[in-house]
């Protein structure tokens, strides 16, 4: 599903965020990306949805090399990926529901259907009452959940989430994780960057630990092992 071959990423002028990363993640795996602040977690995710290009190495998704894509190809790639950002990136002028529905409309889902789906997701994630609110009037945790709902609305093949529970209390974090697990049952690959060790311990079937841009550890927990593709 996701394959990285000797990937190195150097930000100009000389900040080396990733060094010779070699990874394979199979379809339907549930992977945590751990590591201290500045280890390169966000960078790795950015490479996967082509926000950044690797300095060296190749990245294949579903067997396709994504290092050589034009803007049309990038758009197509991103439609298969659900993204949750550290900074949420919601549109302040749209309501929570519209923010979620937009992502579905963009790939061609009819308006009614996308709205229904968006509402359903927001309900599951605990925002039943605030679906009509503008992002700026939502609390940090509420915004984060809207961003998560948006990432899931298209039933993506891959979900990339950057600290999706950083602003959530334990209970809301649990709900979110359950949602991820449910999505995964359809074969969606899920990759979550996080340093919430508690969370990782409870949900992680595989934990990839980064340290200073290198893979320091790649732990498969047997009892929850996904099928490695």
């Amino acid at each position: 599903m996701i394959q990285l071959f000797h990937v190195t990423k150097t930000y100009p002028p000389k900040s080396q965020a990733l060094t010779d990363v070699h990874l394979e993640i199979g379809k339907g795996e549930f992977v945590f990306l751990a590591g201290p602040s500045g280890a390169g977690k966000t960078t790795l995710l950015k490479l996967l949805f082509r926000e950044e290009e690797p300095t060296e190495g190749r990245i294949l998704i579903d067997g396709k090399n994504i290092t050589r894509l034009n803007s049309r190809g990038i758009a197509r790639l991103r439609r298969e990926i659900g993204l949750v950002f550290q900074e949420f990136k919601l549109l302040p002028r749209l309501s929570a529901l519209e923010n979620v529905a937009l992502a579905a409309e963009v790939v061609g889902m009819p308006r009614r259907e996308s709205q229904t789906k968006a509402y359903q997701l927001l309900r599951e994630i605990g925002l039943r009452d605030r679906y009509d609110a503008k992002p700026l009037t939502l609390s940090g945790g509420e915004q984060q959940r809207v961003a998560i709902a948006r990432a899931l609305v298209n039933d993506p093949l891959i979900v990339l989430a950057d600290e999706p529970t950083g602003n959530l209390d334990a209970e809301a974090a649990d709900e979110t994780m359950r949602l991820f697990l449910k999505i995964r049952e359809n074969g969606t690959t899920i990759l979550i960057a996080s340093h919430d060790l508690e969370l990782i311990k409870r949900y992680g079937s595989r934990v990839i630990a980064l340290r200073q841009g290198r893979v320091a550890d790649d732990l498969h927990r047997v009892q929850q092992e996904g099928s490695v593709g």
Partner: protein
Amino acid sequence: MSLFVFGAFMLLQENLQHFLTGLGDQIRINAYLEKGLGTSDVQSLGVRIKTFPEVERARHISQEQAWLDFSAALGAQSSLLDGLPRDALPSSFEILLKPAYRDGPVVEDLANRLKKEKGITAVEYPQEWIDRLSLVVLAVQWTKWFLGGVLFMAAFFIAGSTVKLAILARKDEIEIMQLVGASEELIQAPFVLEGMIQGIAAGAVSVVGLWSLFRFLDRQVASSVGLFGASAQLQFLDLKSIALLLAIGWLLGAAGSLFALRRFVRTWKS
């Protein structure tokens, strides 16, 4: 707004053109005739003159008429003519040229050819006036281009910064659309559409604004006597110009948006 500036320029241009034509009407060639030419000879000569391609109109001025005109022109000193016979002045043709030929060398050439016609003794034309006129035309032309340039730059600048503001205000929107995988067309469509609508709207508003301004000016001018005759009549833009204005608005809106957007997206991360 930017189109208003543009329309104002067109309105000005239209009226200047009209004004110049009015001035040009005062370029006349006088062809003096032999004395004692018969009426039929005069008539056939008139027809002959009208066959010259440069000639717009030719009017016969009888000796009688010439006398009256001349004494009127002399004003207080018309007593000077008292001692002269009424037919001292020759009859003549007053020839009005077509606008395209109202130029020094052309007039001179025509005068020479007229001189060779049978029955014409002398040809007179206001050399100084023609030279002046061409200078005025030149000055107006330059002023027009100068102003036009300034206005055009202003219009372009205004249009540009309007679009820039619109894009800056929706920067996040564009970025997020890109991140959720919207195609470029889908991202650009609303901007281009908005640009088009705004362009046409601006054009329409400009036309209406210009029209009311024009009405106001026209009334002001009308209230002061129209001594220039027809040339003092202000002209409003014709339908073609209005359509052109709207079309320019439409195009400028669409193209401007698209162009700015593309440039903006390209320099995204810097």
